[in-house]
């Protein structure tokens, strides 16, 4: 039986959190994601969740640390500048191997920026943000349906790997209203044993200590090796991407999130014009679908990366393509959302340049 609703992205995400068995939410208001806190303050509390408006994002992420340490499913959400404040906490959470969900409904930056959507937190999300050798598992939704779906996936993945999971959305996805069908999900069927949690030490076990402090370098190296092995496993098993018309594509567009929706429109328009375009949409930004892009780089003539930033994910695309074919960029910054025909224009330019180069060669 489906549960079909028309909802705002932020609210769909919040509703999914309740249904996924999230027991604690600790957050701070910031545009464009305050609806998550507000929805949970009303609905979540009503349905048995601890929902606490903390004094800052710094306090929020540390509450997530404490709550996750007790073995409960906990989460927070914020937007770009608030996520910056959380970086220390995220490093600690990753190091202490605590499962949790963090949501970034990105806005334009840098600095206080704008409240309009952007994708300029890619580096922050995927390349670190916080100090040390760690990674967040990053999921990038591109519809309100995925805003909901990925919450269930995120909690399951977080518990499976004892790792923080980030849902990287943007202000447009957070504010837009679309149909969402909530999956059938019984949290009781998704309980993972957490013998490491601090719940009060019974006589039957040694005390549990949640910490990320390991002063002896030999010990710290072991911890790091364990984390790296974990990320290797995650990369092996959890990499996700979506293929759209890539089978016979001559020109590949790579885009995620909102940019991918726009790029899809551009790809369809291109096809109508006779250009064999395709789109690869990374769904996990970490682990990145490097292998899928590398394979496609053998069959396409050029890659266009479309992002709402100054060019961040393009670096990972270039690493995957390894110079086989040209990689071009189209992007808008400052919270401006590109229109499909802008992307089509960039695609057309790439095709023209490619054709011209080949004519020169003869």
């Amino acid at each position: 039986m489906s549960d079909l609703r028309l909802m705002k992205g932020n609210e769909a995400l919040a509703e999914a959190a309740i249904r996924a068995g999230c027991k604690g939410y600790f957050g701070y208001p910031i545009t464009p994601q305050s609806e998550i806190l507000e929805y949970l303050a009303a609905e979540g509390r009503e349905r048995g969740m601890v929902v606490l408006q903390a004094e800052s994002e710094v306090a929020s992420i540390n509450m997530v640390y404490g709550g996750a340490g007790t073995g409960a499913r906990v989460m927070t959400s914020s937007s770009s500048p608030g996520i910056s404040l959380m970086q220390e906490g995220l490093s600690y959470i990753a190091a202490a191997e605590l499962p949790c969900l963090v949501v970034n409904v990105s806005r334009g930056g840098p600095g206080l920026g704008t409240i309009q959507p952007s994708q300029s937190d890619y580096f922050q999300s995927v390349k670190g943000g916080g100090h040390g050798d760690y990674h967040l598992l990053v999921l990038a939704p591109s519809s309100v349906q995925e805003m909901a779906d990925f919450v269930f996936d995120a909690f399951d993945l977080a518990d499976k790997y004892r790792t923080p999971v980030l849902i990287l959305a943007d202000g447009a996805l957070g504010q837009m209203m679309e149909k969402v069908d909530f999956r059938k999900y019984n949290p009781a069927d998704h309980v993972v044993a957490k013998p490491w949690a601090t719940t009060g030490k019974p006589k039957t076990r040694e005390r549990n200590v949640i910490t990320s402090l390991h002063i002896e370098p030999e010990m710290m190296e072991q911890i790091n090796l364990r984390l790296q092995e974990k990320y290797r496993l995650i990369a092996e098993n959890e990499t996700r991407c979506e293929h759209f018309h890539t089978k016979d594509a001559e020109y590949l567009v790579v885009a995620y999130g909102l940019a991918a929706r726009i790029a899809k429109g551009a790809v369809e328009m291109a096809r109508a014009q006779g250009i064999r375009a395709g789109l690869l949409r990374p769904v996990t930004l970490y682990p990145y679908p490097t292998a899928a892009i590398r394979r496609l780089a053998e069959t396409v003539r050029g890659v266009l990366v479309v992002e709402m930033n100054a060019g961040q994910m393009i670096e990972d695309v270039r690493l995957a393509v390894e110079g086989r074919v040209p990689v071009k960029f189209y992007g808008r910054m400052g919270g401006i959302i590109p229109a499909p025909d802008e992307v089509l224009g960039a695609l057309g330019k790439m095709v023209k340049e490619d054709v011209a180069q080949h004519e020169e060669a003869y």
Partner: protein
Amino acid sequence: MERQMTSPDPSGFECVYERPGTLTDKRLHYCPGCGHGVVHRVLMEAVDELGIQEETIGVAPVGCSVFAYNYMNIDMQEAAHGRASAVATAVKRMLPGKYVFSYQGDGDLAAIGTAETIHTANRGENILVLFINNAIYGMTGGQMAPTSLLGMKTTTSPAGRTVETSGFPLKITEMLAMLPGVYYVSRHSVHTPGAVRHLKKAILKSFQYQKEKRGTCFIEVVSNCPSGWKMTPLESNRWMVENMFPLYPPGEIKVPK
């Protein structure tokens, strides 16, 4: 750990005091004479006496006592610098039936953690906040703390703390006592047997209040730092009485009616 005792237990004598079972066997890393050791011991004695070892979760700070979890045989979490009370808030909110305490130094609680400290107290979280105030940053080598006295020489106030550069010593405990969410506030020391006994009573009371869901219990322990103050333990306790007590007088600051 094998204990080498200096004189055997003569029969006819009963043991009237021994170290609490909830202290682990690990040798404390604190400097000789440091008050941390006494507070750890008294806290664990209280946990022992109340029989709540299985229901207590502690949050350790950054500071000399960052390794507190090595010495207390209870579930514990290490917090980022300043964030212990936020971590403790979440632990208590998720596990409201357990006893939760945070253990923090003056930098952790009154500098980097000021916002978390105030808001945890303002929300009246049902936890015990133990504040060890020795007016200096011990772990990082003796820098000035918010609670350092005027004129006090530290590595970052080598000519002595001045108001122009660094403002006044922060009386955070008195500030917190003003908040309605804070139920019990007292200030102690551990330099005499009597003071230690008072501290233990305060801790026992605080756990009882926690059980009764009365709000935040805040206990400050004015303590010494022989290394940071560059004195022997005995000298440091004398200096503490002469110099710290006038500004931070031990006593009951806020008691329930």
